[in-house]
């Protein structure tokens, strides 16, 4: 039982990282109707920046904050100078552009910092605490809580602020938004910037566990996409819940399902997708999962 609860808590923590990445994908999709396959790549780059800063003697927390700021700026610039041209065109071409971006970012990270694994210091202690009689790691709790806080902030931004309302308006109908005086281009940049910043949080939280490599988040991207499919592109809450379910289920499956084990747990979300598609084609929460016809 002890082990089971530990697995669940650890699953929630990795699920939270997938959730952050998945939310970033939803954010960009809401704003521009695209699926950004470079979302994980941008997050890895942010983690490298934080890592590089700590090596220069910058305290870890400050380094992570700076990397988040860096990501925001980079995301905004990518929107303005790379994606803008492809946004209202063929979505498939735009997706290929993001794949090109992923390749480029991976290449830049590998070129600057090699493809070797680098140790990334952890924000949270690796020790365990006793919670309701079960020992769980502080890192797992910390990671989960950090992502929950970020999600609440994000929700507050979209539901309660003028900027959030403007971002949503631009996502629905950019031209109408412009007719009301909304600076559409700048808002799209903000949307991409926020998504990249969110990814940077995910990168900093997961890098200590995975150790830093240019392809560190390739698998996480796959999980995040699975969460997006299961949760429905229109439902941030659904995406987060789906990411948690995936995180917990894959952890449990790795231990309790003989064939799957740790090496094949990446298959879990896709088995889940197949089951869901057969039972509930509209996704777990979304109104419909029709991505963009």
């Amino acid at each position, binding site marked *: 039982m002890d082990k089971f609860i530990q697995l669940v808590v650890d699953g929630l923590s990795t699920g939270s990282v997938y959730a952050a990445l998945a939310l970033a994908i939803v954010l960009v999709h809401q704003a521009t109707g695209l699926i950004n396959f470079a979302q994980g790549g941008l997050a890895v780059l942010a983690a490298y920046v934080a890592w590089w800063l700590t090596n220069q003697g910058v305290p870890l927390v400050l380094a992570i904050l700076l990397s988040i700021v860096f990501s925001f700026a980079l995301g905004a610039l990518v929107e303005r100078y790379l994606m803008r041209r492809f946004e209202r065109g063929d979505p498939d071409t735009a997706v290929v552009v993001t794949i090109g971006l992923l390749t480029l970012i991976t290449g830049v990270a590998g070129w600057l910092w090699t493809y070797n694994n680098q140790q990334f210091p952890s924000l949270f202690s690796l020790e365990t605490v006793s919670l309701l009689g079960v020992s769980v790691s502080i890192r797992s709790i910390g990671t989960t809580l950090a992502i929950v806080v970020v999600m609440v902030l994000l929700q507050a931004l979209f539901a309660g602020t003028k900027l959030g309302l*403007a971002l*949503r*308006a631009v996502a629905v109908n950019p031209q109408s938004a*412009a007719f009301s005086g909304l*600076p559409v281009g700048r808002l799209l940049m903000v949307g991409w910037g926020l998504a990249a910043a969110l990814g940077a949080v995910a990168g900093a939280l997961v890098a200590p566990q995975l150790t830093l490599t240019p392809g560190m988040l390739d698998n996480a991207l796959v999980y995040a996409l699975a969460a997006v499919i299961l949760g429905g592109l229109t439902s941030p809450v659904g995406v987060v819940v789906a990411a948690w379910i995936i995180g917990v289920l894959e952890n449990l499956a790795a231990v309790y399902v003989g064939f799957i084990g740790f090496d094949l747990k990446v298959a879990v979300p896709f088995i889940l997708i197949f089951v869901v598609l057969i039972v509930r084609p509209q996704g777990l929460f979304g109104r419909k999962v029709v991505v963009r016809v």
Partner: protein
Amino acid sequence: MTLLELEGVTASYGPVQVLDGVSLRVPDNGAVGILGANGAGKTTTLRAISGTVRAGGRIVFDGKDIRGLRPDRVAALGIAHVPEGRGTLGDLTVRENLRVGAYLRKDAKGVAQDIDYCLDLFPNLQNRIRSNASALSGGEQQMLAVARAIMSKPRLLLLDEASLGLAPSTAKNVYDAIRRLRIESGIAMVVVEQNANLAFTLVDSATVLETGRNVLTGTSAELRGMDEIRRAYLGG
């Protein structure tokens, strides 16, 4: 005083020239109609004003050349465009649509008052205030589109085919409300309308476009009397 003046405005979509020298003058507090057959360039004229299509010639608003400005800049100067097809924000509620309309305003109190005014002008929206705009009927969406435009406290309203796709009685309701708005607020208007009779209930003067050119301009009274023009261009 002239609020908006267009002189020799041209525009094209790719190789197709749509506007070939359109002129228009809207006085302060005035309302001018643009009439003409389909494809005459009515909508494009509005799009040239609001900056959604690249145009040549001269477009002067309140003494300032606005040609080539981005749509959001044009809106910031006080021009609100109610596009053909309404352009309401489907995933947002009616209230959120109205708040987006007031995006550039800083006076929270005035915004709240204007929301109340809009709901008074279009009572149908009152009960739907929490509904998603996409759930509204066509008439309600048109009302919402106009209301959203009013929320920016514009000095000039560009109204594109507000009666399109509406039942005659609904269209009349919409135009009645817009006329009341005009009387109460004095907002100047450029009104594009297929249904000339409906347009004449609102505008003081009008110009008739044909293949991107003015072919006839006059007061409503003058134009209304011209039977052959009416048959040819105004579909009435």
